[in-house]
């Protein structure tokens, strides 16, 4: 028997090189990869829901009632859905504050500091312009807030790029410092003497406040958030800047060897993230409070961390994740009232979801069905 005939060899070569070598199964690989990105977190969510249901059963509460109430309070009707959208709006921006630097491999968790300082800067910047057309005032506020936020997180980035100080710790410490400075200024130098029992800065005036999006009860923060997510998705995945960031995040030494301006990238990415968080703060002032006061520190920065990790730092995925977390929080009140459970229940659920999704990270690339089929 001739095994290795010249004809067989030639045929084999021709087979491998011909287009028919790409079997129909392989062409579906991009689809399978997308499915993996969808199914793995979905499974994680289902598992988290399951674990939480066990928790509820242990407490003799009905999981069915719980999830029915979550549905009702989050998405069940137009009012609830708007509630969810409203809560998701600032979270889109604060999640970007974590997600953007994450593409460089940085973990920045100090977004809360950027939010409050951005809000304070915005409220302060409005004051010299009062009386001018609202557009000017809002522009000034927006600019001030964005720059304040960018400067603060950019500082953490600078400390990392130039001094090698870990950005997780430094951004966290900066957040505490920011909160202290914020409180000091709001209750001290910039305090509105008329804001007696609730110290705030001087009001920016109703005429300068942002109106809600037409037809809805939701403020423009939602629009800004969505635009920001889309814009940054393009920036990261479709521009060379974004590509440089990903390369740096993958292997910093290789990036340096390639001559990428690593330090500058780090600082810029952190500044951009901080700008988003600062914008969230300004919007809270301009659309909700009308001044800067202690209620600005509502934990948006910290929720943003959760959402960024849930979305695996992909700006497009941040949107549904923000909706999920926003929805759970929105339904929290209803659950509290109807099931007579403490509001910490929602915290436990969020913790479980977070845990589950992080654990599921280990499954990417492990399951054969999702992997590319090799020709050999």
């Amino acid at each position, binding site marked *: 028997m001739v095994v290795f005939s010249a004809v067989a060899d030639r045929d084999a070569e021709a087979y491998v090189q011909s287009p028919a070598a790409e079997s129909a199964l392989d062409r579906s690989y991009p689809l399978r990869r997308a499915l993996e990105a969808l199914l793995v977190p979905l499974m994680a969510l289902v598992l988290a829901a399951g674990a939480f249901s066990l928790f509820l059963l242990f407490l003799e509460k009905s999981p069915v009632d719980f999830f029915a109430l979550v549905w*009702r309070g989050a998405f069940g*009707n137009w009012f609830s859905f708007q509630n969810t959208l409203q809560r998701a709006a600032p979270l889109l921006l604060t999640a970007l504050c974590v997600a953007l630097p994450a593409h460089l491999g940085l973990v920045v968790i100090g977004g809360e500091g950027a939010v409050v300082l951005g809000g304070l800067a915005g409220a302060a910047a409005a004051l010299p312009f009062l009386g001018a057309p609202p557009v000017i005032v809002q522009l000034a506020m927006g600019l001030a807030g964005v720059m304040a936020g960018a400067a603060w997180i950019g500082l953490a980035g600078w400390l990392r790029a130039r001094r090698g100080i870990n950005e997780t710790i430094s951004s966290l410490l900066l957040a505490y410092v920011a909160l202290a400075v914020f409180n000091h200024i709001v*209750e001290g130098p910039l305090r509105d003497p008329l804001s007696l029992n609730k110290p705030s800065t001087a009001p920016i005036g109703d005429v300068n406040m942002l109106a809600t999006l037409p037809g809805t009860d939701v403020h423009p923060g939602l629009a800004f958030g969505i635009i920001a997510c889309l814009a940054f998705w393009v920036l990261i995945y479709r521009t060379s800047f974004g590509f440089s960031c990903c390369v740096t995040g993958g292997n910093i030494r290789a990036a340096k060897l390639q001559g990428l301006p690593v330090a500058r990238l780090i600082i810029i990415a952190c500044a951009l993230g901080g700008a988003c968080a600062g914008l969230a703060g300004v919007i809270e002032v301009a659309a909700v409070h009308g001044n800067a006061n202690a*209620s600005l520190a509502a934990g948006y920065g910290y929720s943003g961390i959760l959402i960024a990790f849930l979305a695996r730092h992909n700006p497009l995925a941040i949107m549904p994740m923000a909706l999920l977390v926003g929805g759970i929080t929105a339904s929290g*009140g*209803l659950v*509290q*009232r*109807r099931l*007579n459970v403490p509001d910490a229940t929602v915290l436990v659920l969020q913790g479980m979801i977070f845990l589950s999704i992080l654990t599921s990270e280990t499954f990417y690339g492990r399951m054969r069905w999702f992997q590319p089929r090799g020709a050999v």
Partner: protein
Amino acid sequence: MAFDGFSRRKLLEGTAAAAVAGTLPAQLAFAKDLVVGFIYVGPKDDYGYNQAHAEGAAIVKSMSGIKVLEEEKVAETLDVQKTMQSMIELDGATLLFPTSFGYFDPHMLRVAEKYPKIEFRHCGGLWTKGKHPANTGSYFGYIGLGQYLNGIVAGHVSKTKKLGFVAAKPIPQVLQNVNSFTLGARTVDPSITTQVIFTGEWSLPVKEAEAANSLADQGIDVITVHVDGPKVAMETAERRGIYCCGYHANQQKLAPKGYLTGAEWNWASVYRSFVEKAQKGEPLPNFVRGGLAEGFVKMSPYGPAVPEAARKQADAVKAQILKGGYSVFKGPLKDNRGREVVASGKAFVETAIELESMDYLVEGVVGSTA
């Protein structure tokens, strides 16, 4: 539990009704009962501000024909607007009590504009006729005189003549309490001083404990507080072996030996009167306020350490207060920097509008507002 018999069918019915009715309250869900909502900024069992309101709400719960909704730890942001809306839309509430000061402007006002048929009553004294919508209102308790009585008892009991005050923020309501406490003590002995420490936040247990310890380190032997949760300070005082006067609610159990007396809120009567009127369909008053004389505020029973002389004097002053028109801030009165803040011949009753912008600490208080 209130909602045991609440079947899924009713849930879906309620949803459909709410969706269809839009901004009208979903009265199908709780057809005959009056649904009343209470919103707290902190936990209900903080032995302090929120607990005082929750105790009032508990009285309302015991009334027949009432369904009470409560939500705690609602932040003073859009959260509370959404909570109020949720109570109205999804649960059919028609009377809401947002109890924290910061809920009023803009949150409660915005929601009130959207739901003109729902009644909102806020705890704080901000409602102004003509400026705020008619379906909103304020109820306000004047507790300064309670701190005044605290001060009288403290003045008798203190041996070192040094008193302490753990305060959250230097806002007028707090300053009024600090000043009233000091003025009450100085009627017993004009050389008494009060040291005030501001923690900066309404609820910071570690700082409050630290402040209480610092005060005790100074040789102070009676303290009182104005923070959301007095529990930590009271317990710390008891452990240091010094006396304490309570605030918001009755903390006798926390300091069995050292608790002298306390200024407590008595919201039950306020809430009961609102709810009864609502049940009968009568219009609700827009501005309700009162102090000791009107039963909005009460004093805790005296603790074991209070001597007879203190009780006699405090009871006598209390009797005068109950007649109404008593004023603590009367001229000539200087602040602790030497400026005159109340001219000679003038006297401000507790409801005087001038007191609501108080920004000074009276002579005898050690500390500053900034």
